[in-house]
Structures are given as structure tokens and as C-alpha cells.
């Protein structure tokens, strides 16, 4: 009865057919009757206030139904609550749309134009003219590090002696910088909002979590959350950008209320750079020291990340230095600088991806200073228990991952001497870097219904931004129920279904998978009881015998005490071979091997794609992605795909994704840990380390664009270091 495909190759995506035929509908692709279009107008100044907005021409333009700004916006109840006693500054928090006349960043939405067609709304938006009073602004992190303040309570931490690294016989101190990077999922953020009644709302929305979006909207509009229906059946990528209710969602909901018709609002690509968050530009400094034979003595890791003036976004890039390697003395310090720019947000591998670039680069630098192989250096400082909490790991096979990756990339071909290997006029280099991310199991509920015809229906409110959640859940259920995957229907992306958390933090397979597991086991048990035996039940026969049309269970599931007893992490290690052109400085990634230690792999086919996708995100981070702001105007100048580069097909070689695939005995019944974040974390360091091995030039400021490598021709050829 078993679907043999599940165990070997893994299932093909259960929603694949809908995706390859164009039948999968994403948030902007519904047509409630009478739907009209909203287009946002953005601020053209960076800081100051709005004196007036001339909306006459726009209102007169054909098809225009409304122009809404802070001048005429209906009161948004959730915003009022936050206002505090007179004289005190407002508490910080997410940006409030059309709240007052203040401009806090360039591109901030100041109005929404609603018209009967998209073209008419788009044109009318160009007719809205605002008068501003401008103020001086700061958009440069570099020029404002002096005003940095401690990032939350965990801004500072120490283990052992502060700055112990300085006493080590071999030591180095370096600065590492990452620019801001933008998620840029291919699907533009969009929403269709429709008020079914005065206090009843339906939205088709791009979100990583229908339940969180439901809560978020309920908080802003102060209506009971049961009255809000959130649909998000297909999500065209997000990578962290759809974890909160953004201003454009609020704009569409208000607009729909004002014009009393459903309103569709789809951001333009340029808005995607200013309106839905980004990975924050961060400066880091690492001091690291070791004994002559490569034992770490101490690490000091400082970071200053940018945030907005209205919200403190804290992602703790320095935590990697506390947990990755066994090291007795570690001190970290994390600060934020508030700039006149929109708020950053979680982006794939939040914090860790930034921190790991610095730490893995520093380890590599240390390996050359010590003349020890980078893998050997990591093995010498291998943490057998969690260095931070002292707890045992629930499972850790990272040492096997190092070996597996090294074998597959051909690590023995790597020369320990930089800039010493050339082939066909290109410099060749190898590098590696690792990543870690907490493995979490949250709580979720699954309804499992066995129907008379033998179909198993699974329902839970999770979203799938791409990794193939439904496919993984069906794989789990097929295994337990011992029925073919084709007999299972998985329903999700609908806030009326049982609770599931947002898809983020690499926790969905562990969390929702557990709920599916528990629900299926409970349902199967129910059948066994009915049948009076414990063998694999014949579901349809039992239902028929008992004259039942269906049998169902709704099961809530959450992690137990094990999460307190053990330190739970997923690990990855990335190996990269690069070719660098000595004259132009062009870096070509020639070969990539990624190994994930993320427990039991429940859905191998989609898991491989997830690792490959994360690795490609990491290559983008390493080699091309960079938000560029013209600080004279506080304006982002490369807000499009021609100027903000992300990898295209020609940039990417075949990528080998390998799994340790050993179950974690403590995290959940499947033994599965997350892998969305670790797929990317550590990759940028691996590429930078490979570039150094190829060229002898250490690039500590991402991205590694050709201009930073120009001139290697001479140095590489002359002294080879």
C-alpha cells in the first residue's frame, strides 16, 4: 500500500501541478465582485513633515474613487492606544500609516489612490503633489556609529575573561561589513481587502502566517479576530518579508472601507525595497586568538546594525560567536544605530547569516595565521556540549558533515597557499564556512479526517512560502497512516483552519509536522479501537462496517521538557570552489557542496531544493547583493533588478546538497530539525574564504564585486599572498 517514492527520492510537490500549469493563485489573483485598485504615493523627501497634499487633479482623473492621506484617513483605532501622556515621546513600534504629517524615511507612503482600473490608479497617483518641510537627516551607518545604543537587554554578554583573545600567542582583529540586502521574493507583496460587513473583513494576502496576520489586523483595526478571514493559499516566496502586517496592507484595508468595494493593492518592485523590510547593514569587529596548536583562547565580537528611528530591530548577529565553537572566553557587544530609513526585518538566517560571515571569515584568517587547515581548526575547537548553556546537544553530527563535504568538493585539491593555483588563466580557490540555527518546536494543531472513500484530509493554518510544507506533511502522514500520498489532501493558508504558527525560523516541519504526526497517530488509534485490533486498519472497511461517513480528530501538539534539557540546533557546512579572473576580478562560483545536519529528512526531494535555494541566496549575499543609498538625498538608488543584482541562472553551477539524515532523538517524533536558515547561513563566509584562497586578497566588506579584486593580477603573480 505504501507509496515507495516517499522513502527513496521523496515525494514530488503535491501542489506542483498547480504551479506548472499556472492554476496556483497567489494573493493578487482573486477577483471579488466590484474590485478596484489601490496605488501608493511615496514621500519624495527623507525626513520632515507634510505641509499639504494637493489631490485635486488626482481626484478629477478618470475612474478615481478616492485619494486617502493622513488628512482624511478614518481613525485607525489600534494606533490611538499607543499615544502616551503629553510631552513624552511615543513608544517605538511598527510604522503607523497615515498617522500624522511626519516623514520618517524616503518612499514612506503618504497617500493611496483608488481607481476602477490599475492604469487609472497608477496614473492618478502621479498627479498627487505634496508640499514638505524638510529636515536634516542621517542615512549613513558609517557616519553615525557614534550614536549607537545598546540593542536590548542582551546587548552585552561575556563568558570568562573579557578580551582574553589579546593574550593569545596567535591573534587577529578585523572588521567585517555587510550592506543592507532586500528579500525581493519574486511575487510582489500584494493584498485584496474586502469588508463583508461593518466589522467583518476578508483579505487575500501575501503572508507567512495567516493566524499572525489575523491577529495583526485585529490589533490595528480593533475588530474581533474571528471576524477576519485571511487567505494565503500560495505565497510566491518571502524569506522573512511577510512576517508582519505592513503599511500597504493597512492602506488597502482602509481604502476598501472608504470606497466600500474590494481593493487590490500590489506593490511595485521599487516599493519592495522600501516597504517590506530588509537585512540591515551591519558593521562587525572580531578579535580572535588561539594557542600555537589551534586551541581558541578567546573571541570578542562587536556589531552595530542599522535600524529606523521609530523601531528597534534587534537580530543579534553576535550570538554565533557564543555558540558555534568551544571557546572559554567570549565577549560580545551589539548596538543599534537609528537612521532615517525604513525598519529592517527578519531575512533568511536573521542575525546568524550576518554574524557567521564575520566569524567564519575570522576563523579562516586564523587558520592561515596558524598554518592549520580550516576544517582541522574547526575540529580542534569542536563543541561537544553547548558552549553557551553547558547543556548537551539533542544531536550533533557536524564532524561527519565536515568530512562528507570535504570528500565531495575535493578538498584535497585545495592548496594551503593562497593564489597558487591557476587553470586556463583563472585563479582557483577553495573555501568553507558553516552555519548554525536554533531548532525549535512551537505549538500547532492539526485536524485529520478520514473520509469514507479513503481520502485523508489534513487541515492546519500554516502557509507555504516555497519549501514545500504540504509535501512534507503529506509525507509524514502517508508514512504513519500507511496509505498512498495521492490519497491525502492537505489544506492550509486559511485562517479558519486549526492553529499553526507563521512559517519562519525554520520551525515548521518540526512544529506542524509534529501536529500532523500526532493527529494521524490518534486517528489511526481510533480506527484500531473501532476494529478491535492493532494491525494497520482498513480504514474504508471500518467506516463502512460502522456505518460512518468519516472519522476525525483534532490534535494539538507542542514540544515538551526536552527543549529545556537539551540545546537544539541545526548545522550546515558549505564548501565552495571559485575561479577568479586575475585581470577583471570576476568571481565565478564553479562548484558548491552543502551538507546539512538537520535530523531526519522527511521530504528529501523538496529538502534538496531548499538547501540549493539557500545556498544561492548565500552566493547572492557574497557576490552581488547591496542596497546603495545616495546619502545626499537619503534615497535608495538601485531599487530594481537591473541595479540590485541577485543571482541569475548563468551565475550558478550545479550544487550538491547532502544530508546527514540522522534523526534527532529529542526534538519531535520525526526527529526532524529545520533547514531553511542554515541553507544560507555560512555561505557568504565560504565564498569569501574561497576568494582569499584563490587570490590572496581578503575581502571583508560584502559583496565581493570585481572592483574590490581589481589589481590582484600583480599581487597574485608577484608574491602569491
Amino acid at each position, binding site marked *: 500500500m505504501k507509496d515507495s517514492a516517499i522513502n527513496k527520492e521523496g515525494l*514530488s*510537490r503535491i*501542489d*506542483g*501541478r*498547480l504551479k*506548472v*500549469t*499556472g*492554476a*496556483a*493563485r497567489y494573493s493578487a*489573483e482573486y*477577483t471579488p465582485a466590484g474590485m478596484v485598485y489601490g496605488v501608493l504615493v511615496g514621500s519624495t523627501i527623507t525626513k520632515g513633515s507634510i505641509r499639504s497634499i494637493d489631490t485635486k487633479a488626482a481626484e*478629477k*482623473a*478618470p*475612474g478615481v474613487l478616492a485619494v486617502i492621506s493622513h488628512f482624511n484617513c478614518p481613525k485607525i483605532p489600534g494606533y490611538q492606544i499607543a499615544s502616551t501622556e503629553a510631552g513624552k515621546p511615543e513608544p517605538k513600534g511598527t510604522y503607523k500609516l497615515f498617522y500624522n504629517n511626519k516623514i520618517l524615511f524616503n518612499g514612506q507612503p503618504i497617500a493611496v489612490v483608488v481607481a*476602477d*482600473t*490599475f*492604469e487609472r490608479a497608477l*496614473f492618478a497617483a502621479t498627479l498627487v503633489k505634496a508640499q514638505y518641510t524638510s529636515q536634516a537627516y542621517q542615512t549613513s551607518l558609517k557616519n553615525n556609529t557614534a550614536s549607537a545604543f545598546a540593542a536590548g537587554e542582551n546587548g552585552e554578554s561575556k563568558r570568562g575573561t573579557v578580551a582574553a583573545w589579546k593574550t593569545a600567542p596567535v591573534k587577529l582583529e578585523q572588521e567585517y561589513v555587510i550592506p543592507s540586502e532586500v*528579500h525581493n*521574493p*519574486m*511575487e*510582489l507583496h500584494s493584498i485584496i481587502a474586502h469588508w463583508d460587513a461593518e466589522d467583518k473583513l476578508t483579505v487575500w494576502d501575501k503572508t507567512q502566517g495567516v493566524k499572525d496576520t489575523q491577529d495583526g489586523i485585529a490589533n490595528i483595526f480593533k475588530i474581533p479576530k474571528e471576524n477576519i478571514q485571511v487567505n494565503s493559499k*500560495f*505565497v*510566491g*516566496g518571502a*524569506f522573512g518579508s511577510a512576517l508582519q502586517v505592513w503599511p500597504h496592507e493597512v492602506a488597502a484595508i482602509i481604502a476598501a472601507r472608504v470606497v466600500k468595494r474590494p481593493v487590490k493593492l*500590489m506593490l*511595485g*518592485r521599487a516599493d519592495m525595497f522600501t516597504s517590506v523590510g530588509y537585512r540591515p547593514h551591519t558593521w562587525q569587529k572580531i578579535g580572535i586568538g588561539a594557542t600555537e596548536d589551534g586551541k581558541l583562547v578567546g573571541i570578542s565580537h562587536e556589531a552595530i546594525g542599522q535600524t529606523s528611528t521609530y523601531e528597534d530591530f534587534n537580530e543579534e548577529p553576535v550570538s554565533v560567536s557564543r555558540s558555534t565553537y568551544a571557546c572559554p572566553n567570549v565577549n560580545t557587544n551589539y548596538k543599534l544605530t537609528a537612521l532615517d530609513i525604513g525598519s529592517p526585518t527578519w531575512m533568511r538566517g536573521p542575525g546568524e547569516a550576518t554574524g557567521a560571515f564575520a566569524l567564519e571569515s575570522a576563523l579562516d584568517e586564523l587558520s592561515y595565521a596558524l598554518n592549520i587547515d580550516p576544517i582541522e581548526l574547526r575540529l580542534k575547537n569542536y563543541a561537544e556540549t553547548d558552549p553557551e548553556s553547558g547543556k548537551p546537544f539533542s544531536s550533533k553530527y557536524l564532524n561527519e558533515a565536515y568530512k562528507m563535504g570535504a570528500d565531495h568538493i575535493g578538498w584535497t585539491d585545495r592548496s594551503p597557499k593562497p593564489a597558487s593555483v591557476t587553470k586556463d588563466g583563472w585563479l582557483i580557490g577553495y573555501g568553507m564556512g558553516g552555519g548554525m540555527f536554533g531548532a525549535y518546536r512551537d505549538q500547532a494543531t492539526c485536524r485529520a479526517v478520514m473520509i469514507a472513500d479513503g481520502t485523508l484530509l489534513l487541515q492546519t493554518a500554516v502557509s507555504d*512560502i*516555497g*519549501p514545500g510544507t504540504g509535501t512534507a506533511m503529506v509525507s509524514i502522514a502517508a508514512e504513519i497512516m500507511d496509505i498512498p500520498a495521492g490519497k491525502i489532501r492537505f489544506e492550509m493558508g486559511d485562517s479558519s483552519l486549526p492553529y499553526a504558527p507563521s512559517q519562519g525560523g525554520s520551525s515548521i516541519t518540526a512544529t506542524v509536522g509534529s501536529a500532523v504526526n500526532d493527529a494521524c497517530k490518534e486517528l489511526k488509534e481510533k480506527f484500531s479501537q473501532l476494529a478491535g485490533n492493532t494491525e494497520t486498519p482498513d480504514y474504508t472497511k471500518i467506516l463502512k462496517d460502522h456505518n460512518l461517513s468519516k472519522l476525525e480528530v483534532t490534535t494539538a501538539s507542542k514540544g515538551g521538557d526536552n527543549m529545556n534539557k537539551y540545546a537544539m540546533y541545526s548545522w550546515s557546512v558549505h564548501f565552495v570552489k571559485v575561479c577568479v579572473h586575475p585581470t577583471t576580478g570576476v568571481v565565478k562560483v564553479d562548484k558548491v557542496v552543502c551538507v546539512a545536519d538537520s535530523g531526519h529528512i522527511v521530504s528529501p*526531494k*523538496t529538502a*534538496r*531544493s*531548499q538547501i*540549493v*535555494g*539557500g*545556498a*544561492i*541566496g548565500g552566493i547572492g549575499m557574497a557576490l552581488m547583493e547591496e542596497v546603495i543609498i545616495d546619502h545626499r538625498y537619503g534615497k535608495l538608488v538601485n531599487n*530594481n*533588478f537591473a541595479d540590485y543584482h*541577485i*543571482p*541569475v*541562472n*548563468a551565475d*550558478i553551477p*550545479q*550544487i550538491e546538497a547532502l544530508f546527514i539524515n540522522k534523526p534527532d532523538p529529542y526534538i519531535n517524533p520525526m526527529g526532524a530539525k529545520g533547514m531553511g536558515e542554515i541553507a544560507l547561513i555560512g555561505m557568504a563566509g565560504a565564498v569569501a574564504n574561497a576568494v582569499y584562497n584563490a587570490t590572496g586578497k581578503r575581502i571583508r566588506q560584502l559583496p565581493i564585486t570585481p572592483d574590490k579584486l581589481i589589481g590582484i593580477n600583480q599581487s597574485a603573480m608577484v608574491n602569491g599572498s
Partner: protein
Amino acid sequence: MSDKKPCKSPDNEVLSGESRREFLKKSTLLTAIALTPGVAVKAAEGQWDEKLAGVFEKMLLHVEVNGVKHSLMVEPRVTLLDLLREQLDLTGTKKGCDHGQCGACTVHVDGHRVNSCLTLGVMVNDKKITTIEGLAKGDQLHPMQEAFLKHDGFQCGYCTPGQIMSAVACIREGHANSEGEIREYMSGNICRCGAYPNIVNAIQEVKDGGQTV
């Protein structure tokens, strides 16, 4: 007529074989306004001039999409992409940038791949369009769709219709002779989920399989 599919937008008259001029002549309201200056002034004051402009500014478009013939009145500024998505409810073609920079909107116009966001609807008059919805033969998927499924050539699926339309054209153009060539000629289609290696494998399989695409 059986091959005509009424479009959804209320602003779009479905005409059969009329020229734009004939259509305008028939509009008695327009004729009356044109002959009566007083009415015209009143109309202008009541913003009727804009409404009239709205009608005047539309053009008649004959186009065949996935084998279905359409005759529509469209504003010349409407892109083929928005025409497909917003007026014909063919949402399989995706909008990723609206600027010709991502390939999500790729469709075939008379068999050639184009970015439908960079193509105005009125430019495809009398042409044949194939979108992702028109690639399969009923229940039978196109070999490229099958290959994308088999090789897992996507994750979120948003770039996928554009990738598949591009991939089919890539083979038809004779630009799929090696892995390197495929990568190069598929680089107009961005996939942020990073499915590139799987996409290349899918295309190679279809190419090597020798089926007609």
C-alpha cells in the same frame, strides 16, 4: 460567436469585427456633444470630458490567446501582462517587476518568448498568444511541465510559468545545446527561490528526450 470570450472588465466592450472609427460613429452621445458646444462645456465641467476621453482613448484589439479569439476595447497604455491578468483572468502569467527585468511575465507571441510587461496590449493585434495556461493539452502536461515536476524546478512557483515558457522557447530557438548555453539563455528569468540547477536539468532532459516542444 462561440470562439469569443467576453472579458470581465465592465469598461471593455466586446466588439466583433468593427473598426474603431465605426464604433465611434455609432455613439450618438458623442455625436450630439460634438455638435453642441454648450453641452460640451457642461460635460467638461461635470468631468464628462474625462469620461469621453476614456472612451476615445480605447482601441480595438483582436487577439488570440491560447486558441481563443478575443475582440476587446483596450487603452493603449495597458500592458499585455495586465490585459491577461486583470481583464482576461489569466493569472498564470506573473508580474515580478513590470520593468522587463525578471522574466516572470514571459509569454509566447506568435511562438516567440516576450516579456508581456514590456509589450502593450495593442502591439499584439492579430497575433497569437500562448500563456502557461495554454501549454498543456487538456490533462496532458507539456513535456517541459512534466520535467519541471520531475526535477523540482521550483519552490514557491511564482517564477515558474515564466521559466517554463522561456524554457520551451529556449529549446525551439536552438539555445539549449549545452548546460552553459541553457544557463545563459535562461538568465532573463530570475528565480529568487534558487531553483536554477533543477531548471537546467529539466530543460536538458526535455532537449535530450527529443520530443517536439
